[in-house]
């Protein structure tokens, strides 16, 4: 008999999907009720997610068999520290963005209340589904659910957003199809779809060319979803075009869920003999450098932030890449992974949280500014922070956290990654790690240039039209995120501890 908490993984997904349809029906009766249903559902899901995280950390992994069918025949929902950690971030951001949507949707996409929240809820369903599932085909289906919702949400403002949404749809579908093809290849050689079962069946087949081809398809397919360097072209168009709470969700967590899917698939199914550590490292460093160069010259605030998302995706990929690279250099895989590897992975995972919170904050803040003065151009925003004090100061905190200024949250994740690289240089050495160290530091400093420029425009310069603060539901999430950056940065120990636990799971030492 399963305890109630062990049933929560499936409930998190099911409730969310059910609520999407309830919202659609409720919207016919009363348009105002939609956002309250959505907020209540996500709050309930968030509470469940906290219970799941607590259960996973204290009592161990949750296995839920759908319909009672034992894996590998049935679909299994497998939740360990990593899933639960990502799930909590997804729902935390989802809740605050839903609250923000309450007011900002009437401003940005007027009259589409019911349909917006329906699709938003489906989007949350997809995000939760990808994180809790332990079945690779199920993962594909949820990735498609979340992507389809994302295409619709990106295009919801009409006008120029339509073409951005369409480009995103074409790119995203190619990515998903490649992922599907990879799954087909693995199924052809093993006859299984359960990730855990595959990890047991695959080792004798690593030399097989079909398995190698599947590896390439996974990297390209999920690389498009997570917008890593040569596959990032859809992101700078799609993310700014969406309404601000959606931009916050897309940039803050959706690409990171793509990253989660990639590390889950790669680190569980493939050994370090494929040396994808090096691939992730190179792609990560390239995305950082290239996107940084583009971000510097942007005049549109949301577009600048979209490029900065690619930079941060690069940071996360570099962290994971360093971890895999260090493991691949260890000749005999021992019981527990080397310290530097788990530190690098923990840094990457912590950066998912710190970037998610920081980026969601500034995107929501840009929504507040748009509410006030109807523009996204930086040049017209001089001194807006003085008229909108809550938004302005919160955004400053968010930008400084993204920059990595101590004692904010963003500092710790970058510190963990750079420390692990330094540790690894001492124990492993090699040109690759030294180059990583130099490029990483260069990018962190370079990124400061445009974060500080935005801060200066918002708080110090002058020239914006006089306006007043946005309504409460739009200010509240921004302030909560800013407080989270501050408090999380002052007391990071418990957050780092959870990230280390999650990193040990994925590196196979948990």
């Amino acid at each position, binding site marked *: 008999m399963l305890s109630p908490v062990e049933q929560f993984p499936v409930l998190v997904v099911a409730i969310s999907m059910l609520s999407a349809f309830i919202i659609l029906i409720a919207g016919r009766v009363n348009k105002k009720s939609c956002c309250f249903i959505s907020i209540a559902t996500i709050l309930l899901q968030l509470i469940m997610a906290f219970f799941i995280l607590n259960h996973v950390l204290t009592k161990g992994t949750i296995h839920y068999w759908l319909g009672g069918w034992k894996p590998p025949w049935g679909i299994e929902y497998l939740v360990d520290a990593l899933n639960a950690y990502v799930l909590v971030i997804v729902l935390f951001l989802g809740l605050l963005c839903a609250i923000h949507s309450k007011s900002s949707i009437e401003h940005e996409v007027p009259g589409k209340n019911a349909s917006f929240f329906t699709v938003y809820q489906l989007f949350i369903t997809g995000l939760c589904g990808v994180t809790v599932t332990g079945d690779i085909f199920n993962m594909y289906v949820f990735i498609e659910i979340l992507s389809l919702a994302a295409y619709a949400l990106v295009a919801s403002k009409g006008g120029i957003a339509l073409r951005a949404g369409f480009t995103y*749809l074409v790119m995203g*579908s190619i990515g998903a199809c490649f992922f599907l093809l990879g799954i087909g290849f693995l199924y052809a050689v093993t006859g299984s779809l359960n990730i855990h079962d595959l990890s047991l069946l695959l080792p004798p087949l690593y030399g097989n060319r079909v398995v190698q081809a599947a590896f390439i398809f996974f990297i390209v397919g999920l690389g498009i979803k997570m917008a890593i360097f040569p596959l990032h072209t859809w992101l700078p168009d799609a993310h700014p075009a969406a309404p601000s709470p959606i931009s916050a969700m897309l940039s803050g967590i959706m690409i990171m869920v793509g990253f989660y899917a990639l590390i889950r698939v790669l680190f569980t199914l493939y050994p370090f003999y494929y040396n994808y550590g090096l691939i992730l490292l190179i792609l990560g460093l390239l995305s950082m450098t290239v996107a940084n160069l583009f971000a510097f010259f942007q005049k549109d605030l949301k577009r600048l932030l979209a490029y900065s998302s690619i930079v941060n995706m690069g940071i996360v990929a570099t962290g994971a890449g360093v971890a895999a690279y260090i493991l691949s250099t260890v000749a005999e895989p021992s019981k527990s992974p080397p310290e530097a590897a788990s530190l690098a992975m923990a840094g990457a995972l912590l950066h998912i949280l710190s970037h998610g919170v920081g980026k969601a904050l500034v995107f929501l803040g840009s929504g507040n500014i748009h509410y006030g003065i109807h523009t996204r151009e930086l040049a017209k925003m001089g001194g807006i922070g003085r008229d909108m004090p809550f938004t302005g100061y919160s955004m400053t905190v968010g930008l400084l956290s993204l920059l990595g200024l101590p004692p904010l949250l963003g500092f710790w994740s970058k510190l963990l990654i750079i420390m692990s690289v330094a540790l690894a240089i001492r124990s492993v050495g090699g040109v690759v790690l030294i180059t990583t160290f130099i490029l990483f530091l260069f990018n962190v400093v370079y990124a400061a240039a445009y974060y500080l420029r935005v801060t200066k425009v918002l708080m110090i310069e002058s020239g914006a039209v006089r306006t007043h603060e946005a309504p409460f539901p739009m200010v509240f999430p921004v302030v909560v995120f800013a407080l989270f950056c501050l408090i999380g940065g002052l007391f990071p120990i418990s957050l780092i501890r959870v990230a280390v636990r999650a990193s040990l799971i994925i590196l196979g030492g948990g």
Partner: protein
Amino acid sequence: MMEWLIEEILAKYNYWVSIILMLIGFYAMIAKGNLIKKVIGLSIFQTAIFLFYISLGDITGGTEPIVIEGYKGIYVNPLLHVLILTAIVVAVATLAVALALVISMYEEYGTIEEEEIIEKERELGV
């Protein structure tokens, strides 16, 4: 040469057909400027993958997986059909969203050629 042709191409023709279809779809998605043609390319691409899956599960002489008293022969793998049923639903939803976007773009700009849309966007000054 002849043996290679038979072994690698004729014996595995199902895979070759799906690869060729996939590339046709891929080409249409990348090279065509007409949005509807892009959508058609996407559809071909997805269908090629379905074909690949279905042909994986098929066995010559196999029958549908229903237990028959006294039948000692072979069954085809039903799981792949089930997976593809799901994937078809996903593909239909993708097509629906894509076509909805194309329709609203047509209403907005009066054309479905990508280059003309970009030109009109530029004229509008965005």
